[in-house]
């Protein structure tokens, strides 16, 4: 005679899974990894500096007082983006702004690529916050220029393009930031 199995009470099951749910909610983090990506220059025994034509270099210096100067003039951080854009774009071929070389790029054709290099120098006492905001402004300048070229050639914003088009734009507007050895205003300060 087969005995009837009594029904298992599943009422508390929901409670148990609720507990598990709250546990996972508390111990986990949803925040994604984000930030400003950069590449460091490859290690070299002695740094060989190629002498650059003065007009091709934009000297951005952040000093120990967290002041930003571009080519020797102290500016506000809000001005940095426009200065960088003006430097890299040089729309009227002004002789003291960077020269351009005509390169043939796939999908775009002949494009006059700027030879401009941004040289970034900071002090050891510079705060990380300012450093990141300077990097951010430079990135913003590049992104805006790339957006402009992207709309001109492909009719879309840079980030909406596919990878082949993006790499073409990257060749047209290269991001050339070199970081020179930091200065040390005062070794003893913290």
């Amino acid at each position, binding site marked *: 005679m087969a005995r009837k199995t009594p029904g298992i009470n*599943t*009422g508390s*099951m*929901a409670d*148990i*899974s*609720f507990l*598990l*749910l709250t546990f*996972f*909610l508390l*111990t*986990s*983090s*949803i925040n*994604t*990894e*984000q*930030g*400003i*990506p*950069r*590449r*460091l*220059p*490859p*290690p070299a025994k002695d740094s060989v500096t190629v002498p650059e034509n003065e007009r091709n270099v934009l000297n951005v210096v952040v000093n120990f007082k967290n002041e930003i100067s571009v080519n020797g003039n102290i500016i506000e951080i809000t001005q940095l983006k426009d200065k960088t854009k003006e430097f890299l774009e040089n729309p009227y071929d002004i002789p003291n702004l960077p020269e351009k070389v005509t390169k043939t790029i796939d999908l775009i054709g002949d494009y006059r690529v700027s030879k401009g290099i941004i040289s970034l120098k*900071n*002090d*050891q*006492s*510079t*705060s*990380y*916050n300012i*450093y*990141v*905001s300077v*990097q*951010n402004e430079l*990135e*913003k300048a590049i*992104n805006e220029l790339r957006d402009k070229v992207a709309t001109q050639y492909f009719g879309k914003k840079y980030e909406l393009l596919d990878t082949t088009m993006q790499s073409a734009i990257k060749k047209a507007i290269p991001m050339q930031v070199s970081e020179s050895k*930091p200065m*040390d205003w005062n070794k003893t300060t*913290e």
Partner: protein
Amino acid sequence: MARFRKDEKKEVPEINTGSMSDIIFMFLFFFMVITNMRESNVKVKLTPPAATEVQKLEKKTLVENIYIGAPTSNKENTLPPGKVSVQLNDQTIKAEDLKNSIRDFVIEAKAARDEVDKNKLTFSLKVDKEVQMRYVNIIKEELRANNALKINYATSKKVDIPK
């Protein structure tokens, strides 16, 4: 109209809660999939700076974190003059072991990845915004010496308000 008589006391039927647990389980799985456990407890005070031009890192498994900031307790190792700690994996490193620690950290991180992924390995610098650049520069110099060139300055996202 006898049909609409209301005095026939009807009982409210019980709500079936059997499927409740299934729904909760689905929630649970959803959260388990989209989140990740905090692998290491951070031993430094960390408020990342905000930036507008942030990019998301593609794969979390290809990211190694380096934390730099003021230590949360007195027991942690600090770099001279004693106000800033650097944390790799689960522990803050000693000033005299700095070079070796970073070298081992990079070697271990590379050894744990496939051949294909080694070049995609990103070192994310999670630095407190109050930290002076000298500490960041030391770490960057060491990473560079160990051929770990792909780095990321971890920031929080700030929305740019158009004028």
